[in-house]
């Protein structure tokens, strides 16, 4: 194992990771880069090597036939396709090797990948079908040992090396494919039939139609159009009152178009709008509320992201902002506040990253991570860019201008941040409190310093005299207990005498002497040396000095640590990744003060911080609570982490033996390969809990040795309300030494240490300097220098000694302390501990990923620095800062010269209204996607969206809805249908089947059962007898989903509602911008027989009957509710016939039938089943 040398600075981490990773590989596998001797010389040598006859005969007789028989099918020039870039048909080819390095190293079978592979090693098992016999393995092993004898020095033809022959020319690909071109706002065409056009959109469409001589379809009828528009924008039908209002306005305005515009305004302003468009978006980000896999662990509080979407669409958040929030909402400097509550909305967008599957207890944890990251990247790139970056995981994209480097350059952004539950309701509020608190402390610190320096001044001025006197008295006071007053009179007399001689106060002298005596047994006291000397323990003193010398920083034994995840004493290794304000504004530093928690009825005590550390502010002691909050699944579930996590740098483990330097009880979650669901037999060791003393530092070991070579960062949380500090987290094979005992390295301050007589003066000097430092810090409003802190704390501990005779100062001090604690408490009372939680990104240090050769985690290649796609201008810049750099990435993706985000979204808006995108493959604008039917219209729309509309979704939708094109009827002119049967030129609006959610929502709306309550925790899914399996919820949700809209039904990956699935609601695994529309008998069976549909038909009939209008009026109302139109006379008649028929079946008269709830239920049921109900014309 390669030993690591010291670190220069933490920005060198990536290089370091590379070293560790390759070192790990060297240990575990053969043939990695570390073992690879330089290729060139050996290749050159190949021809020069001369083998004896026997060796060559061995090769010809034994080796070559074996290679031909067992290897050449895939690894020779004659192979159909050379696999892994490896050929074995010449010696130089063997030495040069393939994608993962040389196949063999002459003379070293144990280091030859070929030999490892034929032994079915870790990386390869070759030949793949059947293992070679032991004899055959021996033949090749011997051959490598012999130095790879080969009869001829071939000069192989490598033209057939499939893996290496592929060409990837990024610029060429960009130039050849339309979608990489920048958006140029095209001129709106002049068209002849301009009377038809209502907008620029129409002129683009008409231009196409005219050029092909195709007539557009006529206007859709206003009633029908109102229904189309309402369903498209809200996913709900117009209510009877909407229809009435519309008709009234038509009448009043005398103009249906204007009345429709007014309805459009109402629709866009309706809260139901956000629900509909949030659901569209949920398809893109594979929204789900469980993680699938075996036991369906929950995705806690995923619904907060759903609610965020609803609010965002309703508030018409500009799309660029929306994108930025998804990519980096946690890093935005001024987050977008909730419109009412003022809470942080922006950060909620980042929840989308974590909506994918997660595996509990994966055996190959690194592979599992690679799969998860792949899914995130895939979703991100398809959703925002309409590009299939995921195709470049194993090789350069086969068709698009996306390289494998691009894939891993983007992966780094995801590795640089982790998952958390964020208290979004309290975070900003608490930050304000914390900022006041920090200001209060800065002010109070100066006052404390000044006050103490003043109070102790008099004592320190004469300290040398008191100490000198104490030295003489010390031998007399050994074994004496109690204060001056309780001492025997003879002793008091003696003390008085010495005091009088030197004009000292006897009581105070007695106190100093007692302290001096006590210090003889207190190595941490600054008086310790003096005490030892004055009691004649010179030998001890000598030994002590020797010890001091050993523990002085410059002579201390070298720490055994091999890596550092966190070290607040080293500015180069200090990072500050905290989740909220519980740890203050930054690490506590020497010279900061804390108020030690005071026992009841005792005064609070002030202490100066001695050691840099992260310290949880005791004021932020409570966990975040809210009755709605869901806990993480698995072992993390019981940990209160939100708002009180602190994370380290992300590193690659070398030894895997970690030590944390802590105070107090805490917990550590080692996030290995970002593994999250800590449940099941494996990986329990990533979690660690400890109880350490609150008042002294302790090293805690976290054994992660099984994860050597894996990437990890650690997240710390306090375990309870008490003291919690963490100063360091290091990797070390043995426990590092604790910090030197207090005072040990203060010895340097004591000049002429061995001479007793000089000591009191030296001590006085140091203390006087300490007071002077205090005054200086007070006036300059800085912290006490670290060098003064130990002394200052000792002085604080002995405040009565130093404030002797300065009673008024002591009173002042106490008053100051009291005032401060009162103010602090007043602020503490405003801290908000209750908050809902939502998933969010937790940014860490920038991590760059290695390119994985052929996508395999077992064959890591070179590091690829983070950047955006090369084709979008990405270069390995230094501009991503110390964190992940996602905010910069977002800005780059939203830059004006990147055509994708705006174009893809504009196309999605079109797709949802018109049933087919201008680019029909809405998630793939690449070569294998379809080309735009109207490229100029798309670019015009895009520039409108991005420019004049300021990325407003609502304004853009309004423009689309108001177009003449959208207003067309669904029935084409006959000649149009003949000329353009595929409707590529948009000569009519296609009839569309409603999606799954609107079907169910419509049924609820029509039956009157719809509960329009918005937002909030999901409704549990209803379980039918056919829904079974592991992770099945303990109880079934209500059959009617409590009447809530479908997007509020909990999305359980393994228990998706059969009705939704039958109508093509997507399985949440990746981006689905365009749902399939299938036709299965299950759809008809559901609408005919499903208990939910039957129940709603009954419900509807009951509510209609309750209104108690006449039969025809009731039929009319039901038609209007369900179909948005009145029944025709013939339909009224056939309705009556139907009542009579059902009555006959039920054995009741026609007269009774029209009053029978069963008959009306059947009628309602019929309407639910009509195609007019299910399809939008």
């Amino acid at each position, binding site marked *: 194992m390669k030993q690591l040398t010291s670190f220069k600075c933490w920005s060198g981490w990536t290089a370091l990771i590379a070293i560790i990773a390759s070192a790990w590989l060297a240990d575990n596998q053969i043939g990695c880069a570390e073992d690879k001797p330089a290729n060139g010389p050996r290749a050159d040598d190949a021809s020069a090597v001369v083998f004896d006859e026997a060796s060559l005969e061995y090769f010809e007789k034994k080796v070559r036939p074996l290679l031909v028989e067992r290897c050449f099918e895939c690894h020779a020039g004659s192979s159909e396709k050379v696999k892994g870039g490896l050929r074995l048909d010449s010696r130089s080819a063997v030495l040069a090797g393939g994608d993962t390095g040389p196949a063999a190293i002459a003379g070293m079978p144990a280091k030859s990948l070929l030999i490892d592979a034929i032994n079915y090693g*870790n990386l390869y098992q070759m030949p793949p*079908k059947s*293992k070679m016999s032991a004899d055959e393995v021996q033949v090749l092993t011997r051959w490598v040992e012999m130095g790879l004898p080969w009869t001829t020095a071939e000069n192989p033809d490598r033209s057939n090396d499939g893996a290496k022959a592929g060409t990837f020319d990024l610029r060429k690909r960009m130039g050849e*494919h*339309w979608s990489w071109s920048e958006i140029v706002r095209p001129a709106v065409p002049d068209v002849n039939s301009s009377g038809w056009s209502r907008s620029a959109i129409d002129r683009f469409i008409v231009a196409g139609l005219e050029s092909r001589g195709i007539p557009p379809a006529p206007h859709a009828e206003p009633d029908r159009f109102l229904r189309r528009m309402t369903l498209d924008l809200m996913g709900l039908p117009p209510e009877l009152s909407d229809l009435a209002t519309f008709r009234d306005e038509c009448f009043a305005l005398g103009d249906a178009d204007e009345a429709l515009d007014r309805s459009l305004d109402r629709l866009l302003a309706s809260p139901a709008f956000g629900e509909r468009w949030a659901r569209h978006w949920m398809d893109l980000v594979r929204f789900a509320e469980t993680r*699938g*896999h*075996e036991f369906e662990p929950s995705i806690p509080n995923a619904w907060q992201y759903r609610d965020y979407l609803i609010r965002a669409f309703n508030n018409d958040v500009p799309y660029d902002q929306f994108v930025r929030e998804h990519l980096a909402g946690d890093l935005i400097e001024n987050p977008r506040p909730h419109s009412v509550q003022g809470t942080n909305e922006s950060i909620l967008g980042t929840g989308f990253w974590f909506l994918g599957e997660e*595996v509990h*207890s*994966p*055996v190959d944890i690194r592979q599992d991570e690679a799969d998860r990251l792949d*899914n995130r990247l895939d979703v991100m790139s398809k959703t925002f860019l309409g590009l*299939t970056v995921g*195709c470049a995981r194993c090789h350069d994209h*086969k*068709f*698009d201008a996306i390289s494998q480097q691009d894939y891993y350059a983007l992966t780094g952004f995801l590795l640089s941040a982790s998952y958390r539950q964020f208290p979004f309701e309290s975070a900003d509020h608490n930050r304000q409190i914390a900022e006041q608190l920090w200001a209060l402390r800065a002010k109070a610190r100066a006052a404390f310093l000044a006050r103490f320096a003043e109070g102790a001044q008099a004592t320190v001025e004469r300290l040398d005299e008191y100490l000198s006197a104490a030295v003489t008295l010390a031998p007399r006071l050994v074994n004496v207990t109690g204060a001056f007053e309780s001492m025997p009179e003879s002793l008091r007399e003696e003390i008085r005498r010495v005091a009088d001689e030197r004009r000292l106060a006897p009581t105070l002298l007695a106190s100093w002497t007692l302290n001096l005596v006590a210090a003889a047994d207190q190595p941490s006291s600054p008086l310790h040396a003096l005490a030892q000397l004055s009691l004649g323990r010179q030998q001890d003193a000598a030994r002590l000095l020797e010890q001091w010398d050993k523990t002085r920083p410059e002579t201390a034994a070298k720490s055994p640590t091999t890596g550092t995840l966190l070290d607040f004493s080293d500015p180069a290794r200090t990072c500050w990744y905290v989740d909220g304000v519980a740890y203050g504004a930054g690490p506590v530093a020497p010279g900061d003060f804390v108020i030690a928690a005071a026992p009841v009825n005792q005064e609070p005590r002030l202490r100066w911080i001695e050691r840099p550390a992260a310290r949880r502010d005791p004021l932020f002691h409570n966990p975040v609570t809210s009755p709605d909050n869901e806990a993480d699944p698995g072992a993390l579930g019981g940990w209160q982490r939100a708002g009180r996590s602190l994370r380290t740098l992300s590193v690659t483990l070398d030894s895997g033996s970690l030590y944390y330097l802590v105070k107090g009880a805490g917990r550590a979650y080692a996030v290995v390969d970002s593994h999250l669901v800590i449940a099941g037999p494996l990986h329990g060791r990533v979690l660690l809990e400890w109880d350490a003393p609150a008042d002294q530092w302790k090293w805690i070991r976290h054994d992660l040795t099984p994860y050597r070579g894996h990437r990890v960062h650690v997240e710390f949380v306090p375990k309870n309300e008490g003291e919690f500090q963490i100063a360091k987290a290091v990797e070390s094979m043995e426990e590092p030494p604790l910090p030197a005992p207090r005072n040990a390295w203060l010895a340097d301050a004591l000049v002429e240490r061995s001479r007793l007589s000089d000591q009191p003066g030296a001590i006085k000097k140091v203390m006087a300097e300490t007071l002077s430092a205090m005054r200086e810090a007070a006036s300059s409003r800085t912290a006490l220098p670290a060098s003064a802190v130990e002394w200052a704390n000792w002085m604080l501990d002995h405040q009565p000694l130093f404030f002797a005779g300065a009673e008024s100062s002591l009173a002042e001090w106490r008053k100051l302390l009291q005032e401060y604690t009162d103010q602090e408490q007043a602020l503490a009372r405003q801290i908000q501990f209750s908050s809902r939680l939502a998933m969010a990104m937790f940014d860490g240090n920038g991590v760059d990923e290695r390119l994985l050769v052929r996508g395999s985690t077992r064959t890591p290649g070179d590091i690829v620095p983070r950047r955006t796609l090369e084709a979008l201008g990405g270069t390995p810049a230094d501009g991503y800062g110390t964190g992940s750099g996602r905010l910069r990435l977002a800005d780059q993706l939203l830059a004006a010269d990147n055509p994708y985000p705006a174009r893809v979204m504009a196309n999605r808006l079109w797709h949802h209204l018109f049933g087919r995108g201008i680019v029909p493959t809405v998630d*793939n604008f690449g*070569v*294998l996607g*379809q080309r735009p039917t109207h490229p100029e219209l798309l670019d015009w729309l895009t520039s409108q969206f991005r420019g004049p509309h300021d990325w407003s979704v609502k304004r853009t939708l309004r423009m689309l809805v108001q177009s003449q094109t959208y207003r067309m009827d*669904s*029935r084409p002119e006959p000649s149009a*249908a003949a000329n353009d049967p*595929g409707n590529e030129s948009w000569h009519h609006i296609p*009839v569309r*089947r409603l999606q799954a959610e609107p079907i169910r929502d419509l049924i609820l709306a029509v039956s009157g059962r719809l509960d329009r309550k918005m937002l909030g925790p999901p409704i549990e899914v209803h379980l039918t007898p056919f*829904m*079974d*399996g592991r*992770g099945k919820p303990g109880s079934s949700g209500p059959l009617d989903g409590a009447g809530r809209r479908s997007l509020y039904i909990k999305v359980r990956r*393994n*228990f998706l509602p059969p009705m939704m*699935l039958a109508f093509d609601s997507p*399985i949440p*695994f990746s981006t689905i911008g365009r749902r*399939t*529309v*299938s*036709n*299965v*008998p*299950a759809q*008809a*069976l*559901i609408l*005919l*027989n499903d*208990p939910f549909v039957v129940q709603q038909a009954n419900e509807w009939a009951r509510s209609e009957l309750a209104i108690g209008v006449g039969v025809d009026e009731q039929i009319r109302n039901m038609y209007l509710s369900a179909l948005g139109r009145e029944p025709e006379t013939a339909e009224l008649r*056939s309705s009556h016939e139907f009542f009579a*028929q059902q009555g006959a*079946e039920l054995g009741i008269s026609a007269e009774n039938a029209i009053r029978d709830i069963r008959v009306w239920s*059947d009628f309602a049921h*019929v309407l639910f*089943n*009509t*195609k007019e109900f299910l*399809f939008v*014309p």
Partner: protein
Amino acid sequence: MSLDMADSRRRATTHCGRYQTAPMSRREMLRNCGLGFAGVAFAALESRAAHAAGATAGSRGILQAPHHPPAADQVIFLYMDGGPSQVDTFDFKPALEKFSGKSPHEVIGRVEPTQFANIGGMLPSPWKFQQHGESGQWVSQLFPHLATVVDELSFVKSMTSNFSEHTNANYFLHTGSGLQGRPSIGSWFTYGLGSACDDLPGFVVINGGLIPPGGLDNFNSGFLPAAYQGSIFKPDRPGVANAQPSEPGPGLQLNKLAMIRRLDERFAAQQGSVDAVESAIANYELAYRMQTAVPELMSLEKESAATRAAYGCDAEYAQTRIFANQCLLARRLVERGVRFVELTCPAGNGDRWDQHASLREGHEKNCRTVDQPIAALINDLKQRDMLKRTLVVWAGEFGRTPFAQGSDGRDHNPFGFTIWMAGGGIQPGVSYGATDEFGYRAVENRTTIHDLHATMLHLLGVDHTRLTYRYSGRDMRLTDVHGEVVRELLA
């Protein structure tokens, strides 16, 4: 900026031979799938003229014709949820006796990480093995009935999987990918070949009680249209969801259907010829027929007493009775032309085949559940001359370790395990591939899940490299970019 489309397509076809021309129009596809309904006159409800309505029923698949003459027409997939132990069933390893209790690290050498990381000593099978039939294949005591039909079975003793976790391995076995969201193998078959059954879905999963880890997505159509989803049946009435009319009497429903039709006629006429609307209308005809077909299908009591007894429908052990009904139902489904039938295991045996502990008790229960019904199914299919056109596959998602987990269990082992196939196109009575002497790693003729899929498709006349669906910028395949037909197994 413009790229000649034809050029891009030409290039596309050259890559791996699996990127084909741009997708057809939906309309074209519907027609090809048998979904298209344009031009078909409105048919009476009881007419069988509208069979073309559902892709899952009586329809052609995306392939106009099989790529080559099929050896089999239908598949029964006996899914052994949890991972049966190869060394306790069909892969006889006498060497385990010799090393009993010894550390696998010493005996085997390198041992891969396991799901529970609780590796015990080498564990010989507690069951005796014997050779059976003319083929002389080894079968353990656990399968006395299956041993009698062993000459029909063809073993693959060198199966491998890529995953050690149930869910990933289940998805892999069912969809060719370890992650959620890909179409199930039954979906691919019906997508490619359609179904010969008029009034039942083409892909049926008979759920014995245990939906495997990963849930119903093991049987889902993924990115294929919902038409190709597996339909979940239960082995007892009503069999399938929503096939039971909601009305108390048939007349009430017929009236409704007539009324629906009247309204739909008006709408369809108004819209002109819209295939989506027309095929949705036609769907009701199929749905109506399914309401009759399903109860008829479920009438297992109509089978002869001898047949029922042979399957074990009245067996003493409750789980055997459930699986007997499943097997009988499977036969009835293939009889009716259903393309792909999958059986999952009955609940009630503890933890499926997943014996991390109590191997003896667990495997005995599981074997007792499936042994007699499967043997009867093979015999029954043979007697009815259906076996030669029906491919029967028996497989778990992985095997188990030849060493103990703890003291009396076995952990997951995807590195070498056994499955068997029988029937259509399979050479009977052979054994293919081998594990090492411990039954741990496949070392001879290693066979992947992709190979299994390729072989199954091949037997039904489909070239696995040419059955594709465009999704996410790729022409997706069941076998991804892998898979080779195991020609040695073909009859």
